């Protein structure tokens, strides 16, 4: 006699309730599909069940499980909480952390279907992306980040004890203001190893203690050599100018910072660098995760592990996630990265498996290759939003989304020009323009430190290369410049240089006297 499994025993769960063994079953089923059928490569998973309050906590400290203390996180918490309490905004279903093991937070209120969706989305989709995308490989250190944040938290609270909360807060405020200009955009020789950071600091302190000799204080100092004769080029080369990483420059060269302040700048810089890849891969990251959860959920349903009812529940939230309102919709607030990313991934799958003539002409490399997951895995590993869109946004999808390009020149008094729509003439231009909107090298203002008057009044000179007449937001820029001057310790001059290479605007700031 043969026994056949009745559908009920195949099911991972029934209804909405779940417990920890359900989660384990769900994870194992997802893992089987993700590693076996989709060929994903992930960090080990750690799934943490949290309450809504803990989710708000995680929100306010940039999603990280531990973080140093700062008032701004309290502000964000209060802000999110107000909206959440009034029912104006839902919380995310999950948060996932780029670390090894990869930590995914699941909210306790989620139904079993939602937990399945979240595990497939975060623990496999995002996790694979974190582990394989070149930007994350280059700029983040998944094994070291949690230990490093622990060190940072401890270090900053020790600084608070030793130097006072006010002084530390002032330094952190200033560092946060410059955070957007505290990342290396191009890779240097040394790869980042966060685990070495704490050791480095200890070694440095040990060295200082070892070398300390009070006698040096009493040695008469001769006349110092004059550095004023150095030519401009030499001087700039000696300081590593021009430098676009302002925090790095201050950490290395600001004359009046205490060693602990330099270390705090370094911590903020490392945190900014850690999040740098995420800013550049929003569409791809979410597109990958959404595509993966969609694949996994469909396969679970096809094999009968999820009931029809639960699958419908999934489809409903999936449809919400990938909803893209039109430009004239009241709900429109730019592109939804989930929608755009998912649509592009599905479009690529179509091109690889069922290409049209047009696709063959536009994407000769991948059209008709047949192995959709192979092509997608390669794309996920080697692109960021800007290059991804500029190479894989297809005419088909442009037509489907009915994209158009508006060119808004304030000098044109009649109105805004529609410069391209979804037709032969427009595809390339729309694609180029959209990819540019995701290029942070284009969207972030380009500001460099270009010179320091070392022999004179030590004034720091920065230049902003203005593109398309977009000057810096004045009120914010003044505050940031003030922070910059406080850190630098001397005057700071920011020049905004317009398209014809003329200094169009100048802003200065002087350091504030510190009243303790």
């Amino acid at each position, binding site marked *: 006699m043969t026994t056949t499994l009745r559908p009920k025993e195949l099911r991972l769960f029934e209804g909405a309730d779940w417990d*920890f063994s359900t*989660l*384990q079953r769900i994870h194992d089923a997802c*893992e089987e599909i993700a590693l076996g059928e989709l060929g994903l490569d992930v960090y080990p*998973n*750690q799934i943490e*069940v*949290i*309450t809504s*309050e*803990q989710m708000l*906590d995680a929100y*306010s*400290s940039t999603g990280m499980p531990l973080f140093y203390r*700062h*008032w701004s996180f*309290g*502000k964000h*918490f*209060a*802000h999110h909480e*107000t909206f959440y*309490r009034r029912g104006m905004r839902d919380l995310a279903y999950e948060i996932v952390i780029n670390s090894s093991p990869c930590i995914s937070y699941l909210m306790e209120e989620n139904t079993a279907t939602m937990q399945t969706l979240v595990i497939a989305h975060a623990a496999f989709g995002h996790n694979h992306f974190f582990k394989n995308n070149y930007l994350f490989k280059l700029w983040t250190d998944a094994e070291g980040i949690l230990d490093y944040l622990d060190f940072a938290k401890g270090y900053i609270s020790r600084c608070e004890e030793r130097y006072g909360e006010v002084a530390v807060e002032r330094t952190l405020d200033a560092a*946060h*203001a*410059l955070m957007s200009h505290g990342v290396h955009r191009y890779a240097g020789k040394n790869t980042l190893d966060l685990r070495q950071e704490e050791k480095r600091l200890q070694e440095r302190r040990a060295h200082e203690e070892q070398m300390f000799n009070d006698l040096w204080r009493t040695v008469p100092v001769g006349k110092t050599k004059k550095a004023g004769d150095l030519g401009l080029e030499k001087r700039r080369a000696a300081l590593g100018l021009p430098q676009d990483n302002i925090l790095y420059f201050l950490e290395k060269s600001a004359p009046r910072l205490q060693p602990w302040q330099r270390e705090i700048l370094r911590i903020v810089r490392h945190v900014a660098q850690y999040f740098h890849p995420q800013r550049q891969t929003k569409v791809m990251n979410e597109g990958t995760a959404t595509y993966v959860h969609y694949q996994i959920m469909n396969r679970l349903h096809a094999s009968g592990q999820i009931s029809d009812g639960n699958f419908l529940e999934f489809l409903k939230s999936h449809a919400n996630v990938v909803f893209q309102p*039109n*430009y004239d*919709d*009241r709900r429109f*607030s730019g592109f939804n990265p989930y929608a755009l990313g998912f649509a592009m991934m599905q479009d690529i799958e179509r091109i690889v498996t069922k290409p049209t003539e047009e696709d063959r002409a536009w994407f000769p490399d991948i059209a008709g290759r047949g192995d959709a997951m192979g092509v997608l895995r390669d794309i996920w590993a080697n692109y960021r939003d800007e290059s991804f869109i500029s190479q894989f946004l297809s005419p088909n999808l442009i037509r489907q989304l*009915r*994209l*158009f*390009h*508006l*060119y*808004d*020149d*304030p000098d*044109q008094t009649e*109105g*805004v*020009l*529609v410069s391209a*729509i979804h*037709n032969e003439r427009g595809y390339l231009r*729309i694609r180029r*323009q959209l990819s*540019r*909107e995701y290029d942070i090298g284009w969207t972030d*203002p380009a500001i460099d430190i270009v010179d320091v008057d070392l022999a004179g009044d030590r004034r720091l000179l920065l230049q902003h290369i203005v593109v*398309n*007449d*977009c*000057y*810096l*937001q004045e009120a914010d*820029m003044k505050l*940031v410049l003030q922070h910059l001057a406080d850190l630098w310790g001397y005057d700071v001059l920011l020049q905004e240089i317009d398209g014809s290479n003329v200094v169009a605007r100048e802003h200065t700031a002087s350091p504030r006297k510190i009243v303790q």
Partner: protein
Amino acid sequence: MHIVDRRLNPRGKSLENRQRFLRRMKGAVQQAVKRSLQNRNIRDVLDGGEISLPIDGMAEPSLRRGDGGIRDHILPGNRAFVEGDILPRPPGSRGGKPKDAGEGDGEDGFRFVLTREEFLDVFLDDLELPDLAKRRLAETEEETPFRAGYSVSGSPANIAVGRTTRLAMMRRVALHRPRREEIEALQRQIEECEDDESRLALEAKLKSLTEKSRRIPYIDPLDVRYRRFENEPKPVAKAVMFCLMDVSGSMSEHMKDLAKRFYLLLYLFLSRRYKKVEIVFIRHTDRAEEVDEETFFYGPATGGTLVSSALAAMRAIIAARFDPAEWNIYGAQASDGDNAHSDGNLTGHLLQEILPLCQYFAYIEVGEEGGDSSISRSPLWLLYEGIRSDLLPLSMRKVCRRGEIFPVFHDLFQKRDAQSRVTP
């Protein structure tokens, strides 16, 4: 894969950040709390709740592009446009970036929910009872534990680890307890030793050493020390606050509301800040009665006005229950200033009798909504003004609008130097 249940982790992980935020915004929060007080129902005046803060001072600036300049937008959902169309700009905008719907949150102000505790803390910050001078031990003594050396007995929670290990080490050294390394070295020697005779000698030595180390324990119960605490009685100042409220017919609803608000602030301030403050509620029309707080704040009453009745009641209660030699006595009186003409003299006498017993006596005169709170010509005000001198601890204020209650209250009870007094 691990599944971790974090739900039972301690709550309030972000509390520290929240407190830092509140500290940073202290001034603005205080302003907002005061503003929110004015429009509240008397029952939930201090229930905490939402306040709105201005956003300046907590900006997190960054270097970003401002409005203006040439902009490109890619948008989805084209219906009717063709290339080359010119779309008129919406009126009022001069081109540039369209405002994203999602970015508008909290631009005009930052809305923030304070808990009741936080609300009261902000609210009662820097207030105190003036001149709390007579410090006597209260009958029920308050005790605080303080460290008093070490003892050989105590609860396990109080084990002084450092002291215990120090004593244990002293004993081990003194009694020559063999160290572990010694024994290990000996064992190694035995393993390496090939000569039978010397091996036997070594084994005997090892045996004696291990026995000795068993006899002399690593930590002996004798070594254990506990942190000792002794309780120190803490002097507690005894204070009593008399709340005298006029509820006669001449008080309008508005005036009663003002007076009750004032007493509610006073009541909350005293009950939260001072554990040992007695509060006596006296309300009066043409006769006075001592009531409980519920009746005082919410019970209806009406009638004529004889202020002296309240003062007489206060004097009687002081004589019966609160010996001025032991108690710090405070009084707060709220009235519309009306008093029967024939009662003036008696009231004056009574007040002059009571004032020297008091550390502080505040008189609040409530007026009609549109009234002028800088001057008053009421009989009671004139009478009190005649009595007031630098030597008597009497302060007077007039209040006409809800918004003035908090400033006046704050003014009367803010922390000040021992010498300076509130002057009208």
